């Protein structure tokens, strides 16, 4: 407990707790360590037994193979396009709508806002069949828009941004009104720059959500060249791959997990803040 850190007489207890958590954390990392270890083993050895993972020979062939062959690059690219598309889209729409719901009055606004909030209760799976039919009828599957657009209907971002805009002191808008700024100018020049922390939060959530989305891309992106990394990795997890190319599969998993993990390490501070912020709302 942060608060009791200084309190006299609590030191030893704190150390004990920390020590046990370190033990748990080591256990937590075991699966990844195991995967990493396997990824450096030749496939043929693993076909007989994974016990060989604990002794040489080790090889980086599994990784170099990725560069030669697999669709992983294309899938990573697709994931990047989709995730960025979703993120940008959500940021634009949610910022505009959040400002609207928080600050720009019009008749019926509050009712519409409640209706949007109800949308938070609709799980994607509940509309996935109908959505798939819609995009089929429009012949839009296997395109970036098809993978991106459904993500933009999420009410979460609007909710978050509305809360955030509401939390900005109203006197800033009022000062801008007295400064003769128009509605859009107040939004664009005065308030939007203040929401950058919220944009970061929402952006991170949206990006991770889109990057890791599975069900929708699974049924919408059915051409291998349109697979996202998530779907692509799923397509390689077959029995055949496990029996004959285990090391390669592990290398692919590590490799595919790397970009977003690096993003995570880079933005960790913001991500943590984002989650914490979400908790308080």
């Amino acid at each position: 407990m942060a608060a009791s850190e200084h309190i006299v007489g609590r030191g030893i207890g704190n150390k004990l707790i920390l020590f046990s958590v370190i033990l748990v954390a080591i256990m937590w990392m075991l699966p990844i360590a195991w995967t990493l270890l396997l990824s450096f083993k030749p496939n043929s050895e693993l076909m007989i037994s994974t016990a060989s993972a604990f002794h040489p020979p080790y090889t980086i062939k599994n990784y170099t193979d990725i560069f030669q062959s697999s669709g992983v690059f294309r899938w990573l690219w697709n994931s990047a396009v989709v995730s960025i598309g979703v993120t940008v889209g959500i940021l634009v729409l949610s910022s505009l709508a959040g400002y609207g719901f928080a600050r720009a009055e019009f008749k019926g606004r509050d009712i519409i806002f409640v209706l949007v909030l109800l949308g938070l209760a609709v799980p994607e799976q509940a509309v996935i069949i109908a959505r798939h039919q819609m995009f089929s009828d429009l012949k839009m599957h296997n395109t970036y828009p098809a993978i991106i657009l459904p993500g933009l209907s999420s009410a979460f971002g609007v909710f978050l941004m509305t809360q955030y805009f509401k939390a900005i002191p109203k006197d800033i808008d009022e000062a801008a009104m007295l400064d003769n700024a128009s509605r859009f100018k107040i939004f664009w020049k005065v308030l939007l720059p203040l929401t950058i922390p919220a944009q970061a939060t929402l952006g991170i959530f949206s990006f991770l959500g889109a990057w890791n989305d599975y069900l929708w891309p699974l049924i919408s992106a059915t051409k291998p060249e349109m697979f996202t990394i998530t779907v692509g990795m799923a397509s390689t997890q077959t029995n055949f791959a496990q029996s004959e190319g285990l090391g390669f599969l592990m290398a692919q998993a590590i490799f595919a997990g790397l970009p977003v993990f690096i993003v995570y390490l880079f933005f960790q501070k913001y991500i943590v803040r984002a989650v914490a912020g979400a908790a308080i709302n």
Partner: protein
Amino acid sequence: ADKTEISVARFFGACEADYGTVTDVTKANGECGIITALINKFNAESTTTVVKPEIVEWPGYDQLTARIRSGEPPVISVMHEAVISDYSSRGLLEPLDEDFAKAGIDVNDMTDASRQGVTKDGKIYAMPFDTHTWLWHINMNLFKEAGLVDGAGKPILPKSTDELMQQAQQFKDKTGKPYFISTLANETAFYTRTFDTLLYQQNVDFFADPTKVNFSAPEAKNALQLLADIFSKDLTTKNQDYAASVSAFAAGEGGVFICGTWLIDTYDQESKKDGALANGYAVTAFPQLYAGSPRVWADGHSWVLLKQDLSDAQRASAVEFMKFLWDNNYEWARTGHLPVRKSIIESEQFKNLPHRGDIASLAVNGTALPSAVKRQFSIQEIEGEEVGSAMRGDKPVEQALTDAETRINELLANAK
């Protein structure tokens, strides 16, 4: 000139890393290697067509469905013969009789099983690629240890269920290892295929009415009980998924691996190396345990042309590719699958492949469900689930059979 590009969806795994540039098919091994090399070869040789392979998850029908619905199916897809009718009956596949005639694919050269497999409502809807069946991979080194090898160096195999139990027990006593290695985990193929085989052997016609399954025969109970006994008496490895069982056999963890034709080549290669299978690999048709028939479960891979707005050039290219595969059917048979051309089965070249003599009978005895039965994949899935739960003792045998019946019949009742 520009070549016409056609997309070909297939499973069999990805192995561009090893075979990405191999065009000499004879240098390739295994399903993945051979199909990859075949396509490379085609692309290298064809002057008019480029095949763009699209590797999908096995069996990939969920995504194929979604893809057809999205209006952008691949031009050609690999498809199990068991599921062709589901697609053909909805007009999702192109009939190919005329194309084959034009291209010079002689349908009369097709084996009976494969020809039946791709013919629905009197039309041919696919180019058959192989027949694969259920058989026994045998670790001769362990068999020897268990005293189950005869003077001719052939494995001693059971001829009845009693013999089976007895020999399996003997094996276990002698080697300390289970007789069977089976894929009991994570997929249902083992259960369905083995159970079907045992029913065929007893001449049970459980799909007399293609809209209703019937497992009420006592023979069905016998067969299922046999599986349950094998399990409960620890005569098989347990809890292994496909990958685990494949490697378990290679590592010599049991005597018999009940699996498919496609592993023959893989294990044959293995037997040439040091290890548990060194000089000790044999393969045999599923031994006849009942006094009925030697029939055995079978299915086949085939290539279908999906209905869509195809240009003439594309269609021609598609047929050109199919013809190429037809011509190279022997190469595919090297995986262990049975060829679909009589001429190849009879050829010396094929017969000279390792172990092929031992399994030649399968080309005749391989049996599929009647093609009028819809939703065969789903049926097999349900059947496997129920058989599996009975075999593992999660459910009483009779309960499992009635459950399977109701579930399958309910499925068929709602299937269009």
